[in-house]
């Protein structure tokens, strides 16, 4: 059982980390609470499914096309829907909720509400420490690790990454230094949705695909981001590990754990917030005005 917990926790943490870091990035740079973030994850899973079953493209090609298409869609949505109402925080908030609902209903309409299964991209299992891990889950872990490393490289070793970090730090000063903050915000939206889309593509063969699959990870993701500190990438990563393992332990160790896993994870988030209101790695702002 211990090995089960270790492996499941690690795999779930990888997926959560991909989602949470993207969300954190958008929030940090553009101060957008993007409720539609996991809806893009759901869209990527559907896109992958459609390409795979309808067109007969290979796994790798379908995955890449799905991620690219969803990322392009996110930029279009940002330009058309979010940017015109950027000054009104509450309007942005419900614009993203409405977007998520629109995506959900479109998928419900075109694919139906059934659970869709995608055949495993990789067959076979590997045995580590006496636990058999399907290659598919290993793939999730590898992809998550690669994407996280790529994100780190992008943010800390490229000029655009530097611009993104500068904008996240102080939007006005970054603007005065001659950065095009609108374009930076758009780049970070694209990067963060790309991370979510990758997560959607890799989990699609393991989880089932349905139009409501964005709700459960949304809540977990928000818990992780708040736990780690809004806008802090390191916090999101560590928060993802904590929540991933807490969920795994609850499911395997408690009776009725499957129902309680969300409650326990959210309870931990609330407990941390009581002690540190700005999350584990968040910066305490002295009253933003």
């Amino acid at each position: 059982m211990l090995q089960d917990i270790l492996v499941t926790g690690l795999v779930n943490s990888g997926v959560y980390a991909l989602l949470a870091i993207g969300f954190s990035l958008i929030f940090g740079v553009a101060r957008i609470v993007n409720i539609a973030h996991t809806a893009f994850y759901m869209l990527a899973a559907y896109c992958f499914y459609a390409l795979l079953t309808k067109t007969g493209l290979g796994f790798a090609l379908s995955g890449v096309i799905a991620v690219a298409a969803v990322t392009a869609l996110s930029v279009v949505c940002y330009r058309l829907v979010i940017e015109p109402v950027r000054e009104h925080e509450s309007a942005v908030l419900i614009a993203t909720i409405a977007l998520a609902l629109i995506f959900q209903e479109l998928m419900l309409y075109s694919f139906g509400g059934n659970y869709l299964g995608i055949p495993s991209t990789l067959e076979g299992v590997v045995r580590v420490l006496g636990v058999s891990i399907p290659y598919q889950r290993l793939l999730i872990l590898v992809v998550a690790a690669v994407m996280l490393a790529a994100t780190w490289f992008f943010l800390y070793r490229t000029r655009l990454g530097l611009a993104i970090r500068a904008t996240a730090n102080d939007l006005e000063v970054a603007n005065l230094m001659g950065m095009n903050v609108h374009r930076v915000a758009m780049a970070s939206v694209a990067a963060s949705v790309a991370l979510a889309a990758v997560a959607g593509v890799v989990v699609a063969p393991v989880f089932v695909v349905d139009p409501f699959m964005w709700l459960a990870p949304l809540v977990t993701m928000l818990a992780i981001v708040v736990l780690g500190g809004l806008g802090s990438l390191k916090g999101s990563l560590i928060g993802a590990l904590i929540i991933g393992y807490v969920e795994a332990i609850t499911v395997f160790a408690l009776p009725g754990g499957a129902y309680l896993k969300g409650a326990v994870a959210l309870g931990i988030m609330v407990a941390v917030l009581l002690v540190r209101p700005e999350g584990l790695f968040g910066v305490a702002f002295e009253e933003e005005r």
Partner: protein
Amino acid sequence: MYWLRRAWAELRDEVFVLPSRTLALVWALGLLLLPLVYDDPYVLRILTMTCLFAIFAASWDLLAGYTGQVNFGHALFFGAGAYTSALLSLRLGITPWITIWAGAAVALLFGYLAGYLCLRLRGSYLSLATLAFPLIALGLLFAFPEFSGGELGISGLRRLANGPTPNYYIAAVSMLAIVLGLWQLADSRFGIVLHAIRDDEVAARASGINTLRYKLAVFALSAAAAGFSGALFAHYLRVAGPSTLEVALSFQVVIWGIFGGVATIYGPVVAVFILYPLTEWLGSFRSFGELRLLIFAVIVLLVLLFMPRGLTPWLRDKLETACPRCKQRNRAWRSVCRLCGAPLSGADAKIKPA
């Protein structure tokens, strides 16, 4: 006769001078008189639900709009009211007329607790943390199905009254009373303090306002109103199920609130009265039935693109202008202020009201 003339003078000088007040009066009277002229059970059913959700949306606005504590988990209070009232009336056999008050009381307690937990949080942290509360409650309900009914909820509740018309009146009268109460409260000194807390909490505290006490009071009050509507809702539908705690309901109330315009009380009510019947009406078409949530979301999105502050503030600015000298509101088509005689049209009168 004197009182009649007095009332007429009041009406003419205070209500009919402003289109918004006239509309509010017409709407309230229309709600009360509707069943006398048109008592189609289907229409009454939709309007009953609309009234219940209007209470819910208005209570959210007091907390999120006025005080700035943007609550993403308002369904917690709705569900608390619904489940408390349902359990008490079904397990202990108490009449629903008493248990709905118990539901509101328990919701008030939940509101106090949630407010207490959220005292140190602000902004987005608060929104995202509050989102968690109803989900924790939902997890606990599912973990103890023999107590809570699990996925199916608690069904077979007694109604408050029989027949569509009495039920409609219960909902409509409670809605009018609660919304009017919240509106009065928000316009009073208490409401001004809430505005201050939202705009600048540090400054409010520096002015000697015990902001913690005010925030707790607002959480409790808003939760009590939401719990009351939840309890009424449970007894009207005769079932208290997990849907009263879902994320979807929490998001729905956020959409209503922001669509109508926050910090107005009447804004969310107007939004519910437009959006809820609209979605029901769209659902009645066979071909549109599947698309109704889609159409709903698209409408919300389009309205927001053109009126980012919400529907009612936009409408009010079209119908009325504020006098540049005395700040009183006037019909948009008047040329001089009705109270101080200052000219309303012209370059200097175009200043946006605060």
